[in-house]
């Protein structure tokens, strides 16, 4: 077929499809012309006008028939058939609102859940940063030991001196940016109001191709040594929400640590930062951070690859220059540390979707949830397949007639598949709504009080593509079996459609499969639920309820170092006097508070291991409710002039002293930059307390006495146990601090909230997987019920005969339930194998139990069997109650 011909055909087909009216009109005109010419010719031959007309019409053989024939030759296209089938399918679905509702609702749930999880994955991992040419961006990471010192920020990789050395030597990138996440306090005084912020290198915005909404962004000229407090740019959202979108924002300043910083511009609306899940509010140049120490690890780097460079080339190039960079930027390390530091390893990873610790911790759970949601959808479509199979059996008569009067099997297949597609389409439209609600509700599950997670969950082409694909696959899964069955209908006359229970075998097989998959999901849900419970009931060694954590930040200027010890003593006293306060203590870090400090422990000049270090005041253990099991608490004896004393946890004592600990000594070596160390005498031993992770089993912690601290800092953290309402206590604390120093800033937290937030991921997994497991159970039960009651209905005659011949009610009951039992046992048996196999993949996310936990599996199977029999009981009773006389009359 030549191209021209093809084009003409396509044009004509489209014309007759879309402009049917004008085609008809042309046809009219053409035939009219013929008639008139013929009449004229006839008249010319001497006929009367009437006779001429009649003859012409006769010759043509009926204008309408001819028109119909012409239309036929124009071909009824596939599209036209499809439209016809769609109309028919719509009518069919309208006639059975119950069926339609069940089908659309279960599809909406199934596809919606999948879309919601996919939306999260998309936002977290797939969507590229809203910057210029994101695919050229790569992140440089360092691995290996050797970064001893100060660590701040979520994406800490290198120090500022390291960045400068890298910048001077690297060839792989056309430009390379460095940034460190931080928080800026927007409140000039009193309780703090944080926004997420970013320290950025001068080339940051230029390299990413981000533009200002108004004013200008930070440029290389802003990031120079000695820039002082620097300048600030703010996000579009902050500009709108905090500053009312006012145009005079450019003259304003932001408070920052006692000074103010001028706002020079607003970032374009689309840019949220380079870390997925975070929305920056403020950005300031790196030079203003004052973080210039060689042993301060706080920056992450992203480079834009030069044309022609691959990630692998960049990686080997950077590894090549690394030793020089490391030597040039080395902190004053001891020799052993310096060796480690030089031996670090570079990896270069894709950064087109930005950097994200959130992605690292949630990607795997989300993929697991995706698989779970996929299985739920599978169960839902098996239900639909069953419903449609039942309908198919009922509609065999109709299709047999259609075949007999000339319908082709292809057309019937097409029509049945059209119905499935229509259902899937309706289901997926509803699914988008379900997904919208579901996906919005998940980020709060990942957020803590302080750290809000912002994920851009808008629908993009990937989400729509995913939903469409899910709907199509689903439609094929549930539509094909019934369609093939129907298309195989023999035409009328060749076989009387007899047994109503045809296809029952396939339907029972499908239900067994559903039960197997449901067991997998129930098992998984229970595993996560028990993991969460195991964590929630873990003893972290404190009574966290009713404890307020108050962080008070003083300005360097308001609280000079030499006045601090005395001033803090005054403040401590005033806080202790607040009504309702039972006990109060000052502390360096709180249990599961997110920050910690780690040290080497030496005994008799020999390295024995590591321990967490905390520094607490007297009364700390009383306030938190941790018993001191041996020895004493810190007290008035522990002054700076006295020998250093320590309290240790039981696990510390067990690990390093292997006997009575009180009176024993250990040494904390000076940091890695100098030799020597400080000797501590153990004066007390407490029950274990956990600081890092609830999953820790033997937390080795040592507590220094804050009363021996000669140089307290500008931040003071209190733990306060109060008998009054926290709100009331917090107000009193604020008032007391304000009276003490009006320039101080305060941040509050509740210890129990803080502890709960340490289990965010597990809580999310427990919740979502249990919900999915429940939905799966519901769907499987509905499926089982449907098959059993349909089976009972189609066997009425048989059961009637059985009863007439003397079968008892119990016998009928046991016959039906035995049948159900066989379906379920088969499903549960296969399900157990599948569940144990699948659970191996989630072993690392569990706590306190193994992925092959037999008890959990037994509980899941028990629940499933119980619900299954309960759902079958109703149709079984109906079967047992069949009255043979009635049945015989019916037939």
């Amino acid at each position, binding site marked *: 077929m030549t191209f021209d011909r093809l084009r003409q055909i396509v044009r004509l087909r489209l014309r007759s499809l879309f402009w049917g009216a004008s085609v008809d009109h042309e046809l009219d005109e*053409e035939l009219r012309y013929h008639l008139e010419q013929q009449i004229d010719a006839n008249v010319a031959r001497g006929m009367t006008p009437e006779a001429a007309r009649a003859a012409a019409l006769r010759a043509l053989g009926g204008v309408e028939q001819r028109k119909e024939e012409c239309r036929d*030759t124009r071909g009824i296209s596939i599209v036209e058939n499809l439209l016809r089938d769609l109309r028919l399918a719509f009518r069919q679905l309208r006639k059975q609102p119950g069926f339609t509702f069940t089908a659309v609702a279960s599809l909406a749930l199934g596809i919606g859940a999948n879309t919601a999880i996919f939306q999260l994955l998309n936002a977290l991992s797939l969507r590229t940063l809203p910057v210029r040419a994101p695919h050229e961006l790569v992140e440089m990471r360092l691995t290996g030991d050797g970064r001893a010192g100060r660590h701040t920020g979520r994406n800490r990789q290198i120090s500022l001196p390291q960045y400068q050395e890298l910048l001077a030597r690297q060839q792989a990138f056309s430009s390379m940016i460095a940034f460190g996440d931080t928080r800026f306090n927007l409140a000039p005084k009193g309780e703090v109001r944080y926004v997420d912020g970013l320290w950025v290198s001068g080339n940051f915005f230029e390299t990413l191709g981000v533009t200002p909404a108004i004013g200008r962004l930070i440029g290389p000229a802003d990031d120079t040594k000695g820039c002082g407090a620097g300048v600030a740019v703010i996000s579009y959202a902050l500009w709108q929400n905090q500053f009312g979108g006012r145009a005079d924002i450019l003259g304003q300043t932001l408070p920052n640590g006692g000074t103010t910083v001028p706002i020079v511009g607003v970032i374009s609306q689309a840019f949220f930062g380079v870390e997925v899940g975070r929305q920056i509010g403020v950005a300031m140049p790196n030079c203003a951070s004052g973080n210039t120490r060689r042993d301060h690890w706080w920056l992450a780097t992203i480079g834009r690859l030069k044309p022609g460079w691959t990630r692998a080339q960049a990686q080997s190039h950077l590894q090549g220059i690394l030793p020089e960079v490391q030597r040039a930027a080395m902190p004053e390390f001891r020799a052993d540390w310096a060796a480690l530091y030089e031996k670090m390893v570079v990896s270069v990873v894709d950064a087109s979707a930005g950097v994200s610790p959130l992605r690292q911790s949630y990607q795997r759970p989300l993929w697991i949830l995706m698989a779970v949601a996929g299985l739920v959808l599978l169960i839902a479509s098996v239900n639909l397949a069953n419903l449609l199979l039942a309908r198919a059996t009922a509609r065999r008569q109709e299709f047999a007639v259609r075949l007999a009067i000339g319908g082709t099997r292809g057309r019937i297949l097409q029509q049945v598949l059209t119905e499935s597609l229509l259902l899937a389409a309706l289901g997926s439209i509803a699914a988008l709504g379900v997904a919208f609600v579901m996906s919005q509700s998940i980020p709060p599950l990942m957020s803590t009080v302080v750290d809000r997670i912002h994920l851009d969950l808008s629908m993009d082409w990937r989400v729509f593509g995913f939903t469409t694909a899910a709907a199509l696959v689903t439609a094929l899964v549930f539509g094909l079996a019934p369609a093939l069955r129907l298309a195989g209908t023999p035409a009328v006359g060749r076989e009387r459609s007899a047994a109503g229970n045809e296809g029952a075998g396939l339907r029972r097989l499908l239900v067994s499969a559903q039960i197997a998959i449901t067991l997998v999901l129930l098992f998984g849900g229970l595993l996560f639920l028990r993991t969460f419970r195991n964590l929630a009931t873990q003893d972290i060694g404190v009574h966290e309820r009713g404890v307020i954590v108050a962080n008070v930040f003083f300005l360097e200027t308001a609280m000079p170092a030499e006045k601090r010890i005395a001033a803090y003593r005054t403040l401590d006293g005033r806080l202790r006097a607040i009504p309702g306060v039972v006990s109060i203590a000052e502390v360096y870090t709180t249990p599961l508070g997110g920050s910690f400090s780690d040290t080497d422990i030496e005994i008799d000049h020999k390295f024995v291991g590591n321990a967490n270090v905390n520094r607490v005041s007297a009364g700390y253990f009383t306030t938190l409710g941790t018993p001191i099991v041996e020895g004493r608490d810190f007290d008035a004896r522990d002054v700076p002039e006295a020998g250093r004393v320590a309290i240790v946890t039981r696990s510390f004592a067990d690990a390093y002293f292997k006997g009575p600990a009180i009176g024993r000594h250990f040494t904390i070596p000076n940091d890695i930059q100098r030799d020597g160390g400080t000797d501590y005498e153990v004066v007390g031993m407490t029950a274990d307390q956990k600081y890092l992770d609830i999953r820790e089993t033997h937390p080795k912690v040592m507590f220094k006495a804050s009363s021996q601290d000669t140089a307290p800092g500008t931040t003071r953290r209190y733990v306060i146990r109060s008998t009054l309402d926290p709100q009331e206590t917090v107000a009193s604390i604020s008032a007391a601090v304000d009276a003490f120093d009006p320039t101080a800033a305060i941040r509050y937290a509740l210890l129990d909230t803080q502890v709960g937030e340490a289990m965010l991921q597990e809580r999310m997994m427990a919740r979502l997987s249990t919900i999915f497991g429940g939905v799966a159970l519901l769907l499987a039960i509905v499926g089982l019920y449907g098959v059993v009651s349909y089976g009972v209905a189609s066997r009425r005659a048989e059961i009637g005969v059985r009863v007439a011949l003397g079968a008892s009610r119990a016998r009928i009951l046991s016959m039906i339930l035995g049948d159900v039992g066989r379906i379920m046992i088969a499903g549960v048996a296969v399900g157990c194998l599948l569940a144990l196999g699948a659970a191996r993949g989630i072993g690392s996310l569990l706590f306190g139990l193994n992925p092959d936990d037999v008890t959990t599996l037994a509980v899941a199977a028990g629940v499933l069997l119980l619900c299954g029999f309960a759902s079958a009981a109703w149709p079984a009773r109906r079967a047992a109650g069949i009255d043979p006389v009635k049945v015989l009359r019916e037939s």
Partner: protein
Amino acid sequence: MSRPADLVQGTLDLLILKMLALEPLHGFAISQRLKQMSGDILQVSDGSLYPALHKLEQEGWIEAEWKPTENNRRAKFYSLTRSGKRQLVKETESWARLAGAISMLVTLPEV
């Protein structure tokens, strides 16, 4: 679709193509021409002409254009396309083969 019984299948298409190869014509003219040329031996009913024309158009062998006639009325003129010309050659050949075969068969001496 009904076809005149006395026309071998596909012959009408061949005749129409042949006629349009000479000049573009409208439906009525084709019908007149057919009757004249075949001397009323071929009974082509007007009724079967138009579906045939539309089919040929759908196949892409002929194309249609509305043009004024000699007596200044608008009529739909059909003309042969390039692929129609090729089709005419092909159908003429196969017709010749068929006609030859049949005439050979029917003229076999009956001994």
